[in-house]
Each structure stands twice: as C-alpha cells, then as structure tokens.
C-alpha cells in the first residue's frame, strides 16, 4: 500500500462522515458564491458598449425633480454632442399589476434613434413607432414575457403622473444590456398631463469617449446658477448612483458572507478533529513505527484538504450550474436580471474552501504532534 491509497482509505473509512463533510462544505461554498454574485448584481451595473458615450443629465436637486423642456435649445448647441432626447421615467403599472418590473420612458422618437445605437428592431419597424403618437417600442424580454403581438395595446396606470396610458405596440427591440424597457412619445405625455413644459432627464450621446468628460462639464456649466441646475454624468456613473442609494446593503451582504465562511470553517474543523481523534491510537502506532511529525501532518492535511476540495468542486460547480441555467429574471419578477457567476467569484469560493481545508488540519495535527506515543496508545475513545 502506497501513501496516496493510505490517505484515501483513511478519508473514506467512515464514508458517511466523509459524505456529510463534503456536503456541508459544498453547501457553504454554494452559499458563498451565491452571496458574492448577489452583491455583484446589486453593486456593479452591467457595462455596455454605448454606455461610455451616453450621458444622463438630471436636476441637481434630485432625480425626482423635473427639468424645463426649454433647456433642449441650449444643450443642442453644446459642441461634442451628436444626439439628445428628453428621457422621462413614467413609472406606470401595467394592466392590473401592483408592481411592474419593467420601466416605461417618454422619449422623442426621432432624437432617440441616435441614442440607442446597440438596439436592433426585430419586429415591426422603428418608422411605425416614430410616426404614430400613440405607438410604443417594447423590449424583447417584456414582449415575450407577456406573450404580446405587434399591434397589441398596452395599458398603464400612472403612479408618478396623474395620467394613464393606452399604447399600441409598433416595434420590438433587443441587443441592449436590458431588453425590458418600453419607450413612447414624449408628446403624448405632454398632451395628457396638460403640457407642463418639463422633462424628467436629458439623454445625451457624446461624439466620442474622449470628449464625453468635456461634454459633461459643458452641460453642467450651461445651467449653473439658473433656476434648474443640472447634474450630468455618464450612464454608468448614474447607475452607480443608485447603488449608493441602496445604503448599507453592500456591507450587509459582506457580513452575511463572513458568517457563512465562519460556519463553513467550524464544520470542517469539527469533522476533521472528530476524524483524527478516533484514530489517535493509530497515529501513535505510526509515530512508534518512526513516522515523523511532518509526515503525520501531511497525512492529516491531505485528507482534510481533499475533502474540502471535493466539497468546493460540488458547491461552486453546483451554484454555477444552478444560476446559469435558472431563469431568475422570471422567477424574481425582474428583481435579479443577470446573476452572472463570474470566474473571479468561483475562484473566491474555491480559495476559501481550500484555506478552510488547511486550517482544519492544524488543530488535530497540533494535538498529534504534542501527544506522547504511550499516551496515544492508551487512548480508548
């Protein structure tokens, strides 16, 4: 019998315990991976090709405060801008829903065409949308989720605006990072709400990523000390602003991850010391035969590490397989969209399990190293 088989035989001597250990390590790893993915989902908005070019300008007071529509004439003249459209969040509820998970925005269709560059119209035509004041452009995800057809009507009850919408689907798009949104004519919103002369935000496209920062500075400067000061920022910075609003959530998820790792290490350490304690006598025999402390440590380490590694493989792999193949967007009603388990997160899960495997081997090894052979041989348990 050579060394690897000796270690393997030892690890599998109590199959039930080995299985339970692997399973508990696996579950902890899967949880850790899930939590890290959740944190990433909440704090790192997805990047898209056009996002570094796109700028969102909102009222400096807050996103909830509108901007005067007449600002358009000033923005249009700012050099470095290739497209600008009003972009107003409607926030209506679809049909009888109490919480609608996709957003509706009022835009100027002609101007908006130059902004959503990565979108492809897959059904209907953009022209139909732009022509008809009552028409809307729907994201493919929403279109499929509700089983809609071109020409169908979509009714929304306003929650922020005291008006209701009755829109006709003219076109469907996909190809953006979030194919759920719906766009309709700003003119319609103006008409329904009595022409207040305001927009929610301005959606701007810079000519190149290099001039984007200059454009932001110029837009901000253009309205400084006016009644409606503007805060322009890249689309990405705007999204990260929402993350800041979430407050202590990031810390919370990290704390829970800490608790999971703590539990994981407890379980592994407890199992390993159980496994070693019941073979104290054998280890004493090995010692008496002339095996050195270093070698005994290697036996224990290999067993503990092996079990942890198996658990990690199961847990990390399982979590990856589960989250990759589950339609979370549907299950969570649009709360979680991508939930992508990145290689980095998987590496974290595996690394933590590996460290646990090593740490769990330390206390029993220490005990074994300290014991005298006679003492070990006398142990009965």
């Amino acid at each position, binding site marked *: 019998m050579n060394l690897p088989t000796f270690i393997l035989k030892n690890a599998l001597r109590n199959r039930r315990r080995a299985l339970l250990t692997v399973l508990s390590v696996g579950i*902890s790893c899967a949880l850790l991976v899930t939590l890290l993915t959740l944190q990433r989902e909440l704090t790192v908005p997805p990047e898209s090709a056009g996002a570094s070019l796109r700028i969102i300008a909102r009222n400096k007071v807050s996103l909830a405060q509108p901007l005067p529509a007449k600002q358009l004439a000033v923005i249009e003249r700012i050099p470095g801008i290739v497209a600008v459209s009003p972009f107003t969040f409607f926030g209506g509820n679809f049909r009888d829903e109490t919480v609608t998970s996709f957003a509706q925005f009022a835009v100027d269709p002609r101007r908006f065409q130059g902004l959503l560059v990565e979108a492809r119209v897959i059904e209907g035509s953009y022209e139909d949308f732009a022509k008809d004041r009552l028409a809307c452009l729907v994201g493919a995800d929403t279109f499929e989720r509700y089983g809609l057809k071109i020409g169908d009507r979509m009714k929304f009850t306003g929650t922020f605006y005291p008006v209701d919408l009755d829109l006709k689907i003219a076109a469907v798009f996909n190809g953006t990072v979030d194919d759920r949104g719906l766009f309709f004519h700003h003119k319609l919103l103006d008409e329904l709400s009595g022409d207040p002369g305001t927009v929610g935000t301005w959606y701007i496209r810079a000519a190149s990523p290099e001039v984007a920062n200059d454009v932001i500075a110029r837009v901000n400067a253009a309205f400084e000390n006016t009644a409606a000061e503007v805060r322009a920022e890249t689309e990405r910075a705007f999204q990260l602003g929402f993350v800041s609003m979430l407050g202590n959530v990031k810390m919370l998820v990290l704390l829970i991850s800490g608790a999971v790792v703590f539990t994981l290490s407890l379980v592994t350490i407890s199992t390993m010391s159980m496994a070693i304690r019941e073979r104290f006598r054998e280890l004493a025999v090995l010692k008496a035969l002339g095996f050195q402390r270093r070698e005994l440590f290697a036996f224990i380490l290999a067993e503990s590490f092996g079990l942890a590694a198996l658990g990690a493989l199961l847990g990390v792999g399982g979590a990856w397989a589960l989250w990759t193949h589950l339609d979370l967007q549907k299950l969570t009603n649009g709360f979680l969209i991508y939930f992508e388990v990145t290689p980095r997160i998987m590496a974290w899960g595996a690394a933590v399990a590996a460290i646990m495997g090593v740490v769990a081997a330390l206390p029993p090894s220490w005990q074994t190293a300290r014991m005298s052979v006679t003492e070990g041989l006398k142990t009965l348990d």
Partner: protein
Amino acid sequence: MALPLKYNIRNVLVRWRTTLFTVLGIGAVVLVFLGLRALGRGIEATNANTGDPRNLLVVRKGSQAESGSLVSRDQFRTLRDLPGIARNAAGEPLVSAELVMIVSAPRRDGVGEANTLLRGVTPRGMELRSQVALVEGRWFHAGQREVVVSSRLARRFAGFEVGGTIKAGPDRLTVVGHFDGQGSAFDSEAWMDADESRAIFDREQYSSVLLRPADDSLADGLIQRIDQDKRLALRAEREVDYYSKQTMTAKPINYLAGILGTAMSVGAVFAAMNTMYASVGARTREIGTLRVLGYSRRSIVLCFLIEGALLSLLGGVLGCAIAWGLQVGLAAFNVSFGTLDFQSFAETVFQFRVTPDLMLLGLGFSVVIGLAGSLLPALRAARLPVIVALKSL
C-alpha cells in the same frame, strides 16, 4: 420508559469539544436568520409606529407614495371646508397641505449621494404629528430658507448638522435644528416651511393633505365622502394605515432571510448529523447496556432526538443572545441602518430590531435543525443489535 433528561444534558456537556463546534455552527445559522429578519422587522416597525390613529392622510388616487402625489390648491380648499374637521384651541381647522420633495444629498462617509425626503410642513401639520419633538437647536421660521432635520438622518448625511447647509439646486437651506421622530418614518425626513418650499421648488401644487376629524366616529364617513367625490380624484386613508402598508422595502430582506436561513440550515443539519453519528458511535456499548437494562428501542430513539434538540437549542440560544447583544450594542452607539425605500424613492432610516417573537422563531428553527440532524443517527442507535453493541469497544 423514557431515559431521564439529566442523562442527555450530561452527555452533551461531557462531549463539549465535539459539541462546541456544532453549537457554534447552529448559532451562526440562527444569527444570520435572526439578523436579517431583525432588519426587515426594523423597517416594518418604523412604518407601523408612524402616524396618529386620529389623522387621515389624503393623496392623489393611483399614487403609491406621498412623493408621487399631487393635490391642487382647489382640492385643498374643498378638503379644508369639509364638515366634521377638528379645530385647535385657536379655532383653526386641523388641516395641513404639505409638499414632499426628494433632495439628493452627499453621504457623510463621502461615498456617493442618496435621496432624502424634504417635507414642507405647516404649523397645523406639526400639531398633527405629536411624535416629532425638537431635540437640538430651534424650529424653522416661516418664510425663511431654514430646515430642521431628523437627528438620525443627520448622522448619515454631510452638512445636516445644526448650522450646516443643504443644497437644493441653486438654493441653500440652513439647518437650524434637529428633531426626533421616536423611531417613526419621520426619522427619515427633513422639515421646512411649506410655503417657502413651494416657492423654492416652484410648485403650484401640494403633495398631500393631513387632517383630523373632529370625532373618530366621523372618520369613516369622511374617507368615504372623499373617495366618492369624482371631481376630487383623491384617496383618504387613516395615516397609520397608509404607513403600515409601506413595507415593500422589507420584502426582499425577509425573502433573503428565508432563503439563506433554509440553505444554511441544510448545511447545519449535516453538521449536526456528523456530531450525532459520532456520539452514537462512541456510545455503542452504552446503548447496548441500556437495551439490556430494559429500555425499549423507542426510548433510545427519543433519547437521541432529545439530545440533538438540546444540542441545537444551545446553538439557538447562543444565536439569539448574540443578536440581542448586537441590538443593545447598536442602540448604545446609536447606529441606524438605511436603504432606498422603493415607494418614497428616498432613504429610509431604520433600527435593528430583535423582537421576542423573532427570537422564538429562531429557537424553533434551531430545534428543527437538531431534530432533523439527529433522526437518522437516533434510528441507527435503536437498530443496533444488543449483543454486537455490548461486544464493541
């Protein structure tokens, strides 16, 4: 005949080394579950603790929060002149038309900005909210760009200290005082003069109207009357009911508690199983002896189930104790949590709240883990053939 409970207690204590890890593990599971539920409970408790049962809040039909509601001046006049509205000592009707604005402010720790809720409030509105009391500085003067913020909010945002400045676009508001809302939703608000706020934000309309019926028996009639008036298109509701419904933000946290609690407890069940199997293994001869003495298989199963439950109950108690200690510690250092309220679209400040019913739930949870983890080992112990068990070392 059942084995005495003392036997189980002694067994758990004698094997304290193996037991300790399992107890700690189950304690951590209970702590995570309890901690998350305590946050959810904090949000719910804040909203449940807000408002005066005598008050009615009127918002636009279809709006889900005050910040998304509009009430015109005509509508306000109609409401004010409704019969059956209480009057104060000076004979003025207790009706307050208010403007709720969202103002973005920098966080104190320098990491980004978040929305805060700025309420333009009238003297009547302050009379109607007896929960709110000034704790530092003074109240704002009418017609001045002055604001009084909640002391809890002040700890989270830069410039909210007394003497500080809040920027609202080109306008500057001076913080002249701090108030305390006694753990209500008002603790997430900043207050200023209603007319001045409408001037600054250039708003013709109000957001909501708060009023008090002269007698509580008139409340339902008023609610119905406002609801049925087609011209008004407003919705009245008891203030306490309005706030107790604003719990959407607590939902994801409670879901997370459920999902994590379940997943972690599966892991803990495996750990408990490991410990209990080891316990059965080490006591094989003892079990044989008990059987010979006449204890039935059933009492052996019961014995190990009790032991498992006891073990995990220790963990549960530990988890509850830590959660309780956490609550006391957080309260001592005046730590509050905050997140974006999905309904008001502003930061909501809440406390970590471990209530007795949550603790009971945590303890029950731990016992279930213990029972699930010890069932198979207990059955195995009961099935041991007596002779073999006696012969084992």
